[in-house]
């Protein structure tokens, strides 16, 4: 299909990653005309999910540089004083390796063959950026306000595991109780530990009612010192300290008492909102959220075109005036772009490397009667690293066929031990044999400028556990660029004009 693109819009958005989708929906919702383009044939960009059949697409995004004849041809679309600027093609996802793992002679057929024959390859949803939602966090709030909540469904992350490691026993995975009821029933805690934990929770409940200054006073000299010291003076033992810091305090890496308390209160505020766990995972995987925000943008008039390469942008007097896509010129007043497309002449202000490995398995890392969605904070095993975690999701989350799991390992690259090493130790200890794996490096690139004043660079992929920073960065970018417009304002709830069926009909039926 070669339908023509519009000649002119307010905003062109390049890339359909989650931040670009959020910004596209905010612009469309605010009444701006939006054209949303992606070079790929699928939604999500660097934030995509893939079926097992389609996951190879992640390696096939090679784009050729424009040669001089192409440049001169495109230059015919320029007017006086306009300058053609080639888009960048930065390696946001690199060093990709994907492999099926043979598992020994007792296997009659390779797993790949089994899955293909059973038509199960499409049952996978393999996330490039697996995150969770906090029940009372910024993403849930934004979903509700914008009503994108209609398009997405969620499951509770109903199991948090706390790893401990000893030379004799290796890595043990301990279930973490998240609610009062669970704490009392837990086998992992002694009576003394339960009392200390309840004391801590009571303190948190009281502390969360204070304002910031008052809260700081209550922590006294501990406020900016390690959270573990504060817990110790409260009478919390070493094991429970680790438990509190890495599970209840999971939202804050390397916490001080102040930041640890804030994180713990945030965690507990979300417990019970949708169920005993504070965390949610999107049904069909995290790539779903990009698509949901794109739908909202479309409902408010945004045009969507995938698989059409944007070759260049047009600049005049320090501003972008147009994009050139597939030989068509589209004039625009603003551009929103994924960091991937920032022109190569613009330096990144910072780049963080994130190690990612995805494993497909047919056994859970910790067997249970009913399948669980699982989160493990591995911080205690990699104390030098800012981020280390595992997320295991399977059939219950519609990300794998029945009886199968995807295990996502995510870590920043610090210290001697990689997150991959720990994941594979956990597999070995629990007799889990992955049959497929994909590893890559995600580059979280930030830009102070994009080389023109009317260009918005969307937030990059990041290693954060949840979505708060992505949502808040999008909000700030939107409000800075369009200060007179509302960022995804709360929608009026539609009145469901449902008439009750008259009861007489029921009686007549009987």
């Amino acid at each position, binding site marked *: 299909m070669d339908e023509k693109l519009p000649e002119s819009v307010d905003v062109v958005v390049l890339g359909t990653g989650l931040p670009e989708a959020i910004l596209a929906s905010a612009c469309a919702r605010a009444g701006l005309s939006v054209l949303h383009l992606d070079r790929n044939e699928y939604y999500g960009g660097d934030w995509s999910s893939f079926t097992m059949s389609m996951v190879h697409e992640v390696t096939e995004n090679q784009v050729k540089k424009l040669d001089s004849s192409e440049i001169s041809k495109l230059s015919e679309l320029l007017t006086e004083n306009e300058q053609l600027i080639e888009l960048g093609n930065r390696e946001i996802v690199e060093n990709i390796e994907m492999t099926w793992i043979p598992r020994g002679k007792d296997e009659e057929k390779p797993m790949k063959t089994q899955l293909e024959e059973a038509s199960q390859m499409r049952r996978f949803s393999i996330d490039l950026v697996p995150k969770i*939602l906090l029940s009372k966090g910024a993403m849930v709030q934004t979903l509700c306000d914008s009503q994108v909540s209609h398009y997405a469904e969620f499951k509770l992350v109903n199991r948090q595991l706390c790893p401990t490691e000893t030379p004799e026993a290796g890595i043990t995975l301990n279930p973490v109780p998240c*609610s009062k009821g669970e704490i009392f029933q837990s086998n992992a805690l002694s009576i003394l530990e339960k009392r200390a934990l309840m004391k801590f929770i009571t303190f948190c409940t009281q502390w969360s009612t204070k304002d910031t200054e008052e809260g700081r006073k209550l922590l006294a000299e501990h406020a900016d010192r390690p959270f573990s010291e504060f817990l110790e003076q409260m009478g919390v033992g070493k094991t429970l300290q680790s438990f509190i810091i890495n599970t209840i305090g999971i939202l804050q890496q390397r916490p001080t008492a102040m930041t640890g308390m804030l994180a713990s209160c945030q965690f507990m505020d979300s417990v019970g909102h949708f169920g005993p766990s504070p965390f949610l995972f999107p049904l069909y995987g995290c790539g779903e959220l990009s698509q949901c925000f794109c739908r909202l943008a479309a409902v408010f008039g945004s045009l969507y*075109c995938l698989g059409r390469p944007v070759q260049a942008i047009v600049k005049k007097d320090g501003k972008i005036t147009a994009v050139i896509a597939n030989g068509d010129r589209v004039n625009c007043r603003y551009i929103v772009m994924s960091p991937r497309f920032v022109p190569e002449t613009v330096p990144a202000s910072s780049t963080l490397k994130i190690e990612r490995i995805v494993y497909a398995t047919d056994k859970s890392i910790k067997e249970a009667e009913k399948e669980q969605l699982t989160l493990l904070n591995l911080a205690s095993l990699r104390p030098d690293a800012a981020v280390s975690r595992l997320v295991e999701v399977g059939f219950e989350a*519609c990300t794998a066929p*029945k009886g199968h799991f995807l295990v996502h390992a995510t870590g920043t690259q610090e210290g001697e031990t990689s997150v991959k090493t720990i994941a594979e130790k956990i597999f070995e200890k629990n007799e889990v044999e992955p049959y497929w794996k994909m590893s890559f490096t995600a580059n979280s690139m930030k830009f102070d400028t994009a080389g023109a004043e009317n260009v918005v660079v969307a937030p990059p992929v990041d290693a954060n556990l949840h979505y708060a920073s992505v949502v808040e960065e999008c909000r700030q970018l939107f409000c800075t660029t369009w200060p007179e417009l509302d960022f995804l304002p709360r929608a009026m709830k539609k009145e469901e004009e449902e008439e009750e069926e008259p009861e007489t009909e029921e009686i007549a039926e009987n």
Partner: protein
Amino acid sequence: MSYNHLFKIVVVGDHNCGKSCILLRFAENSFRMDHISTLGVDFKLKTIKLGRDKIRLELWDTAGMERYRTIYNSYYHSAHGVMCVYDMTNEKSFENLEKYWLKEIKQHAPPNAVLMLVGNKADMDQERKVDFDRAEKLASRLGVSLYEVSAKTGINCEEAFHTLTAAMRERITAGSMHSDESDDNEEFSSAFHVDGVIKSDKGKFTSCCASAPEPAFV
């Protein structure tokens, strides 16, 4: 309010063949004469009675994303029924059913979703380009129902949706008898929207109280 079944129907087909108009005709018994195509049409909820059952239908429109063929694959997730629409005054829209839409549906819709073909603009018989026999041959070959409707006049719109709903109910009832088919049904249990609406294990749709449950830590 409670229902015996909740079904998701997605409507697909070429741009400008009248998908949104069919949906609006059935859901709200209205027809928009303006030609602002598909702006603002999202999804509609409608409850109908089928025999003794009260059935809640979620009717999903493409929101215009089919224009450049960029419907996202999650549009088809969990769909129980797919209504595939062509414009009978536009031969190309019928040809595109086989060239594009049926392939798209096969790739993305759940394998056990019920498919229906719908030819719109039956009120413009003088301009008809796709005769009934031709469409009926395709429908027979696929083993699906065919309806010729007019969103403008309302002809057959109600009937088409009722027939599709009956087929979905029949398939889900039959499916629960076979363990291999029940895989799809299991996926629906205990998933929820974050605006407070929860689907129960039985597939019924229940609303939470106006306020969310109290947090466990109090």
